[in-house]
């Protein structure tokens, strides 16, 4: 009996681990994919120069900064996959409203604030800051959930960041060289929202690991 309980936990542990890493990949893909896509939303209003890219990149990094701090703090209090489910769910919902609202918003910012650095930063923030901050929580949360002893901290943290960065690379290249030449930017945004919704769902079915 004892043996089978142990086995059960082993299997479920391996399954959770695999699922978290799969999520790390997809969350990483959407994160960088949406940064590339952000350029398609911003260029018509703010031009395609290095200034627009600087606004996009710094906004993404700010979102990651917020996500890392907040994710780390929250998961220590609530060490549950529900944290990931909630964050991915909010990001998915946000992305789902972007296609219909982006153009009037960009137009308004361009007209009221202008197309200089402050306009670019505000527009990039409206587009990216909320969803990517929530996605930014993923890595510290996943590290905490996967960790079973301090002896494996380095390996677990390295694995989460490694897989998520592979996702970043995939998202950047796949979005730029496949999705943008194949379907429109708005449709791609809906695809991302759907991927994140699936990530959120997958984290709801996962059993809560032992604290």
């Amino acid at each position, binding site marked *: 009996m004892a043996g089978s309980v142990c086995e059960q936990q082993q299997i479920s542990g391996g399954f959770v681990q695999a699922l978290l890493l799969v999520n790390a990949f997809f969350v990483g893909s959407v994160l960088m994919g949406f940064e590339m896509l952000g350029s*398609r939303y911003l*260029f*018509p*209003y*703010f*031009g*395609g*120069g*290095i*200034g627009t890219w600087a606004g996009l990149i710094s906004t993404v990094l700010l979102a990651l900064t917020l996500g890392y701090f907040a994710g780390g703090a929250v998961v220590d209090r609530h060490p549950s996959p529900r944290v990931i489910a909630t964050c991915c769910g909010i990001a998915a919902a946000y992305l789902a409203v972007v296609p219909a609202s982006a*153009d009037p918003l960009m137009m308004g910012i*361009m*007209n009221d604030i202008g*197309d200089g650095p402050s306009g670019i930063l505000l527009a990039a923030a409206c587009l990216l800051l909320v969803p990517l901050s929530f996605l930014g929580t993923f890595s510290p949360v996943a590290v905490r959930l996967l960790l079973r002893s301090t002896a494996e901290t380095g390996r677990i943290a390295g694995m989460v960041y490694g897989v998520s960065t592979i996702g970043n690379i995939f998202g950047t290249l796949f979005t730029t*060289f496949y999705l*943008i*030449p*194949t*379907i*429109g*930017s*708005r*449709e791609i945004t809906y695809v991302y929202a759907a991927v994140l919704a699936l990530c959120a769902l997958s984290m709801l079915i996962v059993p809560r690991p032992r604290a």
Partner: protein
Amino acid sequence: MKLRSTTARWGAALLAIGTLLTSSARADDQRQLIESKESLYNNIYVYKEGDYYAMTFGYNRKIYTESIYNSKDDRDLPVTYTRYMTEALAYAKNVHSILEIGFGGGRTSWYLHRFLPGVSVTSVELDPEVEALAKKYFGIKDEPNFHLVNQDGRIFLMHSTDKYDIILIDAYRGPFVPFQLLTKEFYQIVKDHLSDGGVVAQNVEPTTMLFDSAVKTIQSVFPQTDFYVADGNVVTIAYDGAPKDQAALSTIAKQRQTELNLRYPLVDMLAQRRGLQANTIDPNAKVLTDDFAPVEALKAIENHNRKWPDPSASSSK
């Protein structure tokens, strides 16, 4: 063994590329680099060869020449397509104001300014360094009726309430194609800034699939499009309303020629006017929009076998 042969193949390929590069550089050796500038948007090089100045972006001076200026004659347009851009004068109902998007060395707009000093010419250039170099080497001066605006072309139009009789679009920069200047939404904004009877002339590079999509996009906003095949480039003239026949265009061309005494007569260039043949544009080409505009991918698909009807055939239409 496999590794060795792969290495050898790469070595041979690199050697071939190296030979190609040095030989093309040697062919251009008489051009002397007189200034280079790294701006926010470009790496700009100004070369001098005899009396001629050339502005190029990037190192590949053979491919990415933006502008050529004859310092002894500021009414000379050494680059053929820029002459055909002025053919818009034969189409416009009135000529009171001209807008150019993409100034570069400023050849086309300065030529128009010199021959039409009473007409307001505005040129919008994104890169302030390009503007500065044009003023330094390409004979551009501050003069009444000649306005230079340092802004993104689309943003300029979105903020402007002015209307123009002629809008010239030449904002391709070397290898860079800003997608937001090639979409249906952009051409709609351009159309909204045309006065009654106004026309748009655009330089389009015809060797890739991007040409097909660009033409379809222009045609999605403008019912009429004429084409002028100009030495490797194609100038597209687009306008609203009914098609203009050759005789009507010829009449205006002759009349404006008498008034303006242009260096490159509109009537002569009119002989190069072409329409489209069924197989000129790829049937699979899609209209570009702000949502879907894969300009880089389209530019990578070469399409050299373009069929243009005989100039004489379209002139009878």
